[in-house]
């Protein structure tokens, strides 16, 4: 680890375009940036590496004027700056290209770029600006037709529009927030060429990423964040190995342990066989993925967000079709059937999004807990619902799971995250499932709530339920799982039974297990 706060140079060399010192930014319940330092040289590509939630985006949002730091200073070209809006930041030459583009689909490229600017004032004079923008794009190798409408463009082209937008506004420093996440491999290559040509034109680039191989390929230097703290600042890429970077990114001691009995895995309950599936955009999200989960075990699936976890959970729970392969639950095919089909065969699902998928905010707690069993007696009485039974059922769950809610008629939107998650778990567990798919079950919860969720999952495991735990929180996975697999770009990189966090970290960044083991024996790091 690098020692921080050791530098104390008042008159910094002019080669720093951006210097951030001791940035602290707090969100309710989280310290997103804890005295973070970051320095950007002129004319370099500087990667900002870290897991989800490490504080990369927060730090860059501070630099781009979207957030304001609580403590710490930002210097641009040696001048102390104090941005109160993204407009201020762009004035100082700092532009950010966000992961989600902010473009108007029905308008042309030129119109999007001019949007919000003072000039042109009234008459658009599009023909004139079209040529200005075409010229600007040509200079930086960003080929895009200025007259095309945004909806006609591919994602890669839209990204180019966003970049031109920033260049047109005079950005000297470009912050790219996970620019490759939305791109196809060929487009990534084009992007990298663009980045190089921008450097050649004197710009400086901050490249936010959690993909090691990309960072190794494109960056000159790298700063690594872990849980809001800098673990390495401005390391030269040439002097560091991928393994060391992985360690800087995820390596840590496991803080808390959960008491759990040794597992007694039973029969295979969930059998995912060579599944291929697409995401919402029609791109392949899961590639030939297979895994098995047995009764009475917690199978942890680690991975950085956006590597197919969401799609996999949806495939298993019947909410997404598979293109190839199949999913078996207790030896019955459940893929490409329906959500209802799987539910009736003992599948419980704790979705990632508690408020938008897992519950219905304006309905009462009673209505929310009968979501899965309202079709069966005793809740169902013919085509009617027995409200007395349903209310008793809800009251029992409220008692058993210690849900803090005034009464069971209260709409669940008034509940805290932890209580809401208990409502979901109570509902899912009360169905005595044979398989439970839990995605990020503790995200955003406080420590007490996390502990209670963990206890519930473990007691389900002891009751013989097969549990697929999909999480980005390595600590949680290590504490709970009997076996951890890592997913990367829709493929399983490998499964480990022990708790070698470095190997998991490497797999999370795209090395598969065999590669690691071969490399590990060849050269010791």
């Amino acid at each position: 680890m690098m020692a921080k706060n050791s530098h104390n140079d008042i008159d910094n060399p002019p080669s720093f375009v951006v210097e951030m010192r001791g940035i602290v930014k707090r969100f309710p319940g989280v310290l997103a940036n804890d005295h973070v330092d970051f320095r950007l040289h002129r004319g370099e590509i500087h990667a900002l590496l870290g897991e989800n939630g490490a504080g990369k985006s927060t730090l860059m949002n501070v630099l781009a004027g979207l957030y304001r730091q609580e403590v710490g200073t930002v210097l641009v070209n040696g001048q102390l700056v104090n941005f109160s809006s993204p407009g201020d930041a762009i004035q100082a030459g700092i532009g950010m290209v966000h992961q989600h583009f902010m473009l108007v689909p029905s308008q042309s490229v030129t119109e999007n770029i001019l949007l919000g600017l003072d000039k042109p004032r009234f008459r658009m004079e599009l023909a004139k600006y079209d040529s200005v923008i075409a010229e600007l794009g040509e200079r930086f190798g960003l080929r895009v037709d200025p007259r095309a409408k945004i909806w006609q463009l591919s994602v890669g082209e839209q990204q180019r529009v966003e970049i031109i937008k920033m260049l047109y506004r005079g950005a000297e420093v470009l912050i790219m927030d996970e620019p490759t996440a939305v791109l196809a491999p060929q487009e990534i290559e084009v992007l990298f060429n663009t980045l190089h040509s921008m450097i050649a034109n004197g710009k400086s680039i901050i490249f936010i990423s959690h993909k090691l191989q990309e960072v190794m390929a494109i960056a000159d230097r790298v700063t690594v964040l872990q849980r809001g703290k800098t673990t390495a600042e401005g390391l030269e890429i040439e002097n560091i190995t991928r393994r060391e970077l992985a360690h800087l990114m995820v390596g840590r001691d496991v803080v808390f342990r959960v008491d759990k009995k040794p597992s007694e895995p039973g029969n295979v309950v969930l059998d995912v066989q060579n599944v291929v599936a697409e995401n919402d955009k029609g791109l392949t999200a899961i590639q030939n993925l297979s895994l098995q989960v047995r009764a009475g075990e917690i199978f942890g699936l680690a991975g950085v967000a956006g590597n197919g976890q969401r799609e996999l959970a949806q495939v298993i729970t019947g909410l997404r079709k598979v293109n190839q392969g199949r999913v078996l639950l207790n030896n019955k095919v459940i893929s490409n059937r329906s959500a209802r089909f799987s539910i009736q065969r003992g599948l419980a699902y704790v979705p990632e999004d508690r408020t938008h998928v897992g519950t219905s905010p304006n309905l009462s707690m009673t209505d929310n807990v009968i979501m899965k069993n309202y079709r069966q007696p005793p809740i169902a009485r013919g085509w009617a619902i027995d409200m007395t039974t349903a209310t008793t059922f809800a009251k029992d769950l409220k008692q058993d799971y210690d849900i803090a809610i005034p009464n069971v008629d209260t709409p669940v939107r008034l509940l805290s995250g932890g209580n809401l998650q208990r409502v979901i778990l109570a509902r899912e567990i009360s169905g005595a499932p044979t398989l439970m798919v839990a995605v990020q079950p503790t995200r955003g919860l406080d420590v007490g709530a996390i502990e209670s969720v963990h206890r519930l999952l473990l007691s389900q495991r002891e009751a013989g339920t097969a549990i697929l735990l999909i999480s980005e929180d390595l600590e949680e996975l290590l504490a709970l799982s009997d076996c951890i697999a890592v997913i990367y770009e829709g493929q399983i990189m490998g499964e480990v039974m022990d708790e070698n966090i470095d190997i998991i970290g490497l797999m999370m960044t795209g090395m598969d297990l065999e590669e690691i083991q071969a490399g590990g024996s060849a050269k010791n790091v």
Partner: protein
Amino acid sequence: MSEMDTPNNSTSSEEIPPSEPIIRSFPYRLRIEPRMEEPARWYPFLLFLGALVLALVIGGFLLVLAGGDPLRSYAHIARASFGNIGVISDTIVKATPIIFTGLACSIAFRMHLWNIGAEGQFIMGAFGAGAVVLIPLLPEGTPVWIFIPVMAVAGIVAGAFWGFIPGFLKARLKVNEIITTLMMNYIAIAWINFFIFAVWSEGGFQMTTKFPDNAWLPRLLDYANRIPVFRGLTTHLGFLIGVLAAFVLWYIIFRSRWGYEIRLIGDNPRAAQYAGINIQRNTILVMMVSGALAGLGGMSEVAGVVHRLQTSPIAAGYGFTGIIVAWLAKLNPFGVVLVSILFGALILAGREIQPSGLPKMIQGIILVCLIASDFFIRYRIRFVRLGEEI
């Protein structure tokens, strides 16, 4: 901005520097905040009454400005709509079609299906019921107890069909139901006009022949021989059917599996999908039930009041009023019945004091106040002393 140079003021927020100027004329400020707890049960009722009173006070000022006496005017309005059993009956007759269209809208809106085609479905229901008489589907002299149910079924089927089309388009092709239902209103009007003006026109007049007595819904005045009080009362069986429909609808929405699905889809379609509910199927079904209710309303109006097919009293905008009624009733079926009666009274009163020209405006003020009062269900307003934040 000033905290940049002082790194030690990280946690404590109590010690706010007295930078604000102390001289202020009013030491309090209004704060609007979302309600974090459920309001008590009586609260919405009180709010409803409060809004009504406020609207009447505002309307009173207008009446004074127009040179009228507000108290006397209001007394007159009250007498005109609830003053004696005769006008109460008239109010109910006016309320009956609105009950049906209000119920039709309420079930569709409950699932967040914006059916603004209750008007067209109402008209088609009237057409269906009229067709039974005018084709004629049943021989002359068929007893009432056969005639009326057949007309009701025809009205329901025609309305449901008119709801099915946009429902199907929405479910299968994702066509916006607001546009289709709105457009189908105009088709329905053109359709019924064609039959009234051409096919079933009575001697070239823009109406059909009067229905025979056995195609009339029973009215209170029919029993005036035995119960003299009922003399002259035109309240017909349709009102009873409407109230009954409200009970059934309440039971379906709040006590049946299907109603549960509707509520779940309406509140959070993604959760409904997650619970394994077929949204497409329910979209079609709900649009059909909504259309059927409006269609039944159309049947009730022709068989109970108009007794013939004629454009102006049938296509009188009941479907559009139903939209407002459904919202004011917060989509509750019983609320629909109550609000419809209020609307019936307003329509009647409006006609009564027409010369003063103000009743339409007062109607509008009442509506705006009732709709705006909804704000206080979701938010509350607090006075906050300046400086005492949060």
